[in-house]
């Protein structure tokens, strides 16, 4: 029995609305919304907070379709393909129709992924319960190897960023013998427990974005499509012939969400390309075709439930947004991992109910008043970003109940993240490495201390061999895919030059 009242409903509603606004504003993401609103979770228990945070998550992912369709600028990376067909539809006077098709496809994607989350997380967690520290170490290594597989064209750079994140997570006191390492004397008090997750992720996701926008001059993009001119309205019959596309796209989105570090843009692109490959009229894609719009939106909302599967069963965040959610759990003293459902059955039910409610709220909040919601993209950035900075400072300062060092940490990681962007070092693998780093070390040391330091312990258990197989397969795939991409790029350049 879960506790549900008016406050839960209100928080979910606020989360969805604020999330949609964040998603609809280009340059602001669901990750940023959750990072900025994390301090509110101090005021409430985790149950109430989850309604807010999951509302922000669902709203943030869904809101991205608004600018993608109206001005051909994806509000979030996950709506990258939405504009391919949504914008041409808007230009020919079908903006509201396109928005409502996208919203309905988003609802389907969200509900489909929720069903898979409900079905697959408990059995996966049960398997993970039999894992010793050896398998846990290898699972984290596998998560890092997937980062490599998905850092297309810069596989080594992605792995480097992941291990750099691991390195940063090791700074501070080692829990086994309580000894400090890699900390200068004058920071020995502030860095006793290492860098705090919340300031690190606010710095990496909010400050970096603000610095990039500042570098670009904080220019606002003008409204493109005219919503008052409506040539053709929305009908649910628009989805006739889209059933296979809906299921395939939602499944692709959920599957991509399960893979750590991949992100919504890959879900959207993969689903769009598959829809085009299977379509009997691929030449229509990119000209305002409903199929393309449905594929992109069903996939990116499919991501929401998918990304929670590895988080709640293995303790591995599926994307940057769920990485921020780890912060929310940590702040409330809840450990995510194989024991999460067993130890927190009520919380598991809260997550499922909150996701279900937030998906329906997203639909009702967006579907009918979409004309008015669409106007949020007119909000000037120079008015919004100062307030975001204000909220970031509160978030960082309150992460340890009032510590100015954490605000400095946020600034440091903001500048570091900005530097990473400049040298093309991906931030998401860095953050995932940072989150998993301490566990990677813990399970490594736990594995070898019982066997006198012998590394052969990692090759003695059958389940370990299975995970090694997965690691080798993911690296082999990464190498093959990277070479294939390089060949395609070379062929493309050759063709262009010819």
């Amino acid at each position, binding site marked *: 029995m879960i506790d549900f009242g008016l406050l839960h409903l209100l928080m979910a509603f606020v989360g969805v609305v604020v999330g949609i606004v964040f998603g609809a504003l280009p340059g602001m993401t669901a990750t940023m919304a959750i990072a900025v609103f994390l*301090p*509110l979770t*101090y*005021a409430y228990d985790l149950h109430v907070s989850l309604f807010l945070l999951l509302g922000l998550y669902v709203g943030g992912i869904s809101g991205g379709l608004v600018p993608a369709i109206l001005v051909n600028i994806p509000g979030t990376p996950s709506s990258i393909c939405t504009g391919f067909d949504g914008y041409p539809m808007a230009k020919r006077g079908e903006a509201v129709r396109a928005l409502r098709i996208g919203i309905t496809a988003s609802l389907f994607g969200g509900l489909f992924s929720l069903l898979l989350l409900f079905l697959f997380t408990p059995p996966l967690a049960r398997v993970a319960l039999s894992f010793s520290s050896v398998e846990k170490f290898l699972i984290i290594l596998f998560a890092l190897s997937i980062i490599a597989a998905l850092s297309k064209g810069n596989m*080594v*750079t992605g*792995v*480097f960023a992941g*291990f*750099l994140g*691991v*390195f940063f997570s*090791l700074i501070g*006191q*080692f829990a*086994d*013998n309580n*000894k*400090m*390492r*890699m900390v200068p004397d004058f920071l020995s008090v502030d860095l006793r427990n290492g860098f705090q997750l919340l300031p690190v992720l606010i710095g990496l996701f909010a400050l970096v974005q*603000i*610095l990039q926008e*500042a*570098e*670009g*001059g*904080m220019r606002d993009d003008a409204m493109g499509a005219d919503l008052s001119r409506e040539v053709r309205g929305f009908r649910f019959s628009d989805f006739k012939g889209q059933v296979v596309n809906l299921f395939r796209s939602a499944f692709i989105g959920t599957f991509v969400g399960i893979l750590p570090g991949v992100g919504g843009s890959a879900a959207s692109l993969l689903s769009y390309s598959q829809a085009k490959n299977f379509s009997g009229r691929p030449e229509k894609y990119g000209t305002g075709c409903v199929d393309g719009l449905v594929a992109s939106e069903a996939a990116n909302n499919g991501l929401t439930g998918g990304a929670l599967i590895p988080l709640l069963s293995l303790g591995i965040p599926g994307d940057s947004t769920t990485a921020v959610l780890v912060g929310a759990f940590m702040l409330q003293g809840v450990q995510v991992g194989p024991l999460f459902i067993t130890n927190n059955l009520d919380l598991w039910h809260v997550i499922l109910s909150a996701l279900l409610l937030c998906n329906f709220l997203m639909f009702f909040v967006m579907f009918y008043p979409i004309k008015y919601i669409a106007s949020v993209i007119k909000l000037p*950035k*120079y*008015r919004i*970003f*100062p*307030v975001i*900075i*204000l*909220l970031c*400072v*509160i978030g960082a*300062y*309150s992460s340890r*109940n*009032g510590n*100015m060092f954490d*605000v*400095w940490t946020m*600034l440091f990681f903001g*500048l570091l993240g900005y530097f990473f962007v*400049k040298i093309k070092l991906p931030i998401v693998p860095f953050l995932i490495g940072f989150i998993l780093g301490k566990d*990677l*070390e813990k399970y*490594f*040391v736990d594995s*070898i*201390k019982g066997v*006198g*330091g*012998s*590394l*052969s312990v990692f090759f003695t258990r059958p389940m370990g061999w299975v995970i090694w197989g997965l690691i080798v397969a993911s690296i082999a795939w990464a190498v093959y895919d990277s070479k294939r991409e390089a060949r395609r790029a070379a062929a493309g350049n050759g063709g262009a030059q010819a």
Partner: protein
Amino acid sequence: MFRVSYKPSTSHWLFPPIILGILALLLAVMIAQRAIECRRKGRPFINREAMRFFEPGCDKLKLFGSVALFVLYIYAMEFAGFLASSIVVVFLYSVLFFGVDRLKELPAAIASGRPWANGAFKSVCVSLLLSVLFSTSVWFLFARVFKITLP
């Protein structure tokens, strides 16, 4: 070779060197990859002309101003507290992001006797109003309603 020396007293220095070793190895691979690519394409390994840190048309005033204001904000909170410093800094950020160069229009706008007709004057006034409104609302919400510790 397939064994590491484990002692509880020094176990805190067991894992960091392994990670540093992996990072060094990956860095070497990255450098080698770049060297091979540059050689294949006939480009110099370090091409100073093609290397640029900032985007073309980078607004350095807004970029460095943002960082400087942030540092100022941290120090200001220590001395003046959260609310007062937030009002000032949010206003300064709004002006910075709107465009400092547009402040030049203000003396002429005031001298004309009809300052409201000038966009820059209006924007500065709105920024001031919003910075007071936002900062006070956020302070009230977090510090008073949710009882979250603020500087």
